[in-house]
């Protein structure tokens, strides 16, 4: 597998893991939040509805009391009694001492003439015959007006009751202190952003709202007046979300509206949401971090396993290749060996016959003898090849003996010292002190090192250096022998083949190509490994690792 594939795999592991861990997390978070939000909002709305209804009842009670106060007054007196302004004044003062809801009090006869008046304005003699409220009270007996400026040029509203006395009707009319009424409405205001006001059925404000709008101003949006009964809902007004509850008063077609800022009311939800988001983010962070770490560890483990497997595979391939080649070599050697033996015997036979006198005298005797000599020479050459082949294929158990590697190498190099000196090649020995004894087969090892050293001398040719180094490897479990030369090195494409039988770079007749193959077989059988490192132009280094025990 290539690095790109590992990255892809890692991304896939991360993606899948995140998918499977984040989706439930988000689903859980959202559903809990949604449930909480729904039930909390419902509760808030319920509270708001209850509050607006309570407030409405209070206001209606206020109106009921005012109406019954006026009714009581009207029905316990005659028009003539109340026409007396001094008497009226006494009664008004009495009422004022209990409650300051009324600003003034007036008596109007059936012609609309203001016949008696107590209060801060001079309204006596004003005729109301053409006013809407006059018609209404004459017709219905009770009337509560919308807020209007009227004759006094000041916003107010009135409550009027009519009394039929004999064959005439007269009206008792009182002005309500708008401040007291507004205070009552405003009692429903909550928090810093809460608002409460009253509208008539034409969306005209009957009290001053806290925000946006003034008394007698018309509210264009939203159209509150379309509401029937009591309603509580969330609304968007000028881009802001507000909670609005509204209900109609019983005594008058007025709509009580209470607004609340959801940001204040829903604070716990927002707090919960904030906490939720924080927790979710922390959770996501932990999951992502964990996933990345786990995926990284997994792919690294995989890379390691794959690399080990590749090494194992290549070792396995090499050793099975060697085994197959061994069998092949043995087969060839046997098949070639028998004809060789026959040729040799036949040649020997001819040589025997040549000793007979009459042939010795023939003119071609020398040619015969020469030919026989050549045949024997080449049979010998072929025999060496088959014997080496068989040596390579040999399945002989190695001898177990204690080998001092430094001494063995010194001795082996000693065989070649003369040759090296002749070619001006120095053999440098870098032996580690206190190298443990190795349990191995010294003569076979000697063959291996001799092979490598001969190759090294051949590779260097003239004027160079061969370095033999011994060291302890793998925490003292292995002895490493490195033989490095300053030769031309081995081209990359040949590195994989140098241990194959018959692989040689030497000219025909100068090498069988068996040396390194045999060496490989020997080292393998001794439980070690042989490796080569080389770069063209930088020499070659053969390392033989042998187990100590």
């Amino acid at each position, binding site marked *: 597998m290539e690095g790109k594939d590992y990255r892809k795999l890692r991304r896939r592991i991360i993606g899948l893991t995140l998918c499977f861990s984040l989706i439930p997390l988000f689903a859980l978070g959202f559903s809990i939040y949604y449930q909480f939000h729904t039930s909390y909002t419902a509760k808030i709305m319920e509270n708001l509805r209850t509050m607006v209804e309570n407030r409405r009842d209070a206001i209606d009670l206020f109106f009921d009391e005012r109406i019954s106060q006026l009714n009581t007054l009207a029905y316990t007196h005659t028009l003539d009694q109340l026409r007396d302004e001094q008497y009226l004044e006494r009664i008004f003062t009495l009422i004022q001492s209990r409650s300051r809801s009324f600003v003034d009090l007036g008596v109007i006869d059936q012609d609309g003439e203001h016949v008696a008046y107590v209060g801060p304005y001079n309204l006596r003699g004003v005729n109301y015959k053409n006013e809407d409220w006059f018609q209404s009270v004459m017709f219905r007996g009770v009337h509560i007006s919308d807020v209007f400026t009227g004759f006094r040029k000041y916003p107010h509203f009135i409550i009027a009751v009519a009394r039929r006395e004999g064959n005439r009707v007269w009206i008792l009319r009182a002005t309500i202190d708008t401040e007291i009424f507004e205070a009552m409405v405003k009692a429903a205001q909550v928090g810093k952003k809460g608002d409460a006001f009253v509208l008539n059925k034409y969306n005209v404000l009957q009290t001053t709202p806290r925000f946006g709008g003034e008394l007698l101003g018309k509210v264009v949006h939203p159209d509150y007046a379309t509401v029937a009964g009591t309603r509580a809902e969330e609304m968007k007004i000028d881009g802001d979300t507000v909670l609005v509850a509204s209900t109609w008063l019983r005594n008058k077609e007025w709509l009580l509206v209470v607004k609340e800022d959801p940001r204040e009311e829903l604070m716990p939800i927002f707090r919960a949401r904030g906490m939720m988001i924080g927790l979710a983010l922390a959770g996501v962070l932990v999951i992502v971090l964990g996933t990345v770490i786990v995926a990284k560890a997994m792919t690294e483990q995989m890379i390691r396993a794959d690399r080990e497997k590749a090494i194992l595979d290549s070792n396995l391939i090499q050793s099975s290749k060697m085994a197959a080649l061994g069998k092949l070599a043995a087969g060839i*050697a*046997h098949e070639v060996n028998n004809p060789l033996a026959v040729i040799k015997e036949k040649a020997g036979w001819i040589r025997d016959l040549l000793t007979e006198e009459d042939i010795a005298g023939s003119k071609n005797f020398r040619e015969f003898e020469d030919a026989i000599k050549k045949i024997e020479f080449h049979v010998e050459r072929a025999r060496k090849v088959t014997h080496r082949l068989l040596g390579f294929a040999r399945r*002989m158990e190695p001898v177990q003996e204690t080998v001092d590697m430094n001494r063995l190498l010194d001795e082996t190099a000693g065989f070649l010292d003369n040759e090296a000196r002749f070619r001006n090649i120095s053999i440098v020995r870098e032996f580690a002190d206190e190298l443990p004894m190795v349990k191995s087969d010294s003569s076979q090892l000697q063959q291996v090192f001799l092979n490598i050293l001969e190759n090294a001398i051949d590779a260097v040719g003239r004027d160079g250096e061969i370095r033999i180094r011994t060291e302890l490897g793998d925490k003292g479990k292995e002895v490493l022998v490195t033989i490095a030369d300053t030769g031309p090195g081995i081209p990359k494409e040949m590195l994989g083949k140098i241990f194959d039988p018959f692989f040689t770079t030497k000219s025909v007749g100068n090498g069988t190509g068996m040396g390194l193959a045999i060496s490989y077989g020997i080292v393998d059988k001794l439980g070690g490994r042989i490796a080569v490192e080389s770069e063209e132009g930088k020499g070659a280094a053969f390392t033989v690792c042998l187990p100590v025990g």
Partner: protein
Amino acid sequence: MEPFRVLVVDDEEDFLETLVNRLKRRQVDTVGVDSGAAALDLLGREEFDVVILDVMMPAMDGIETLKRIKDLRPFTEVIMLTGHGSVESGIQGMRHGAFDYIMKPAEIDDLLVKIREAYERIRLHKERG
């Protein structure tokens, strides 16, 4: 004429014929047969001092033949002729009572030396009775 008789056993006829001729030329009374069975048959009728025995033969191989020869004629010495290159088969032969082994293709003179050594041993045995 050499004082000993030699029997050569090898399935490769050309080799057998030539080796027998060459030994005869060197004053050795030699007979050649091409199988283990033939060798045993002949040994049952005639006496030989030394047997040159090829290890690799079809039907009855060298080691098997060697065992039977030793059963039949305990005092006959056997030299194994091995094409194996490996010492294994030679050593195996010696474990079963062969006198020595020699690798194919062999020098006739080396072979002759080994035959003489083998005969020397037979002579010593006979002298001791």
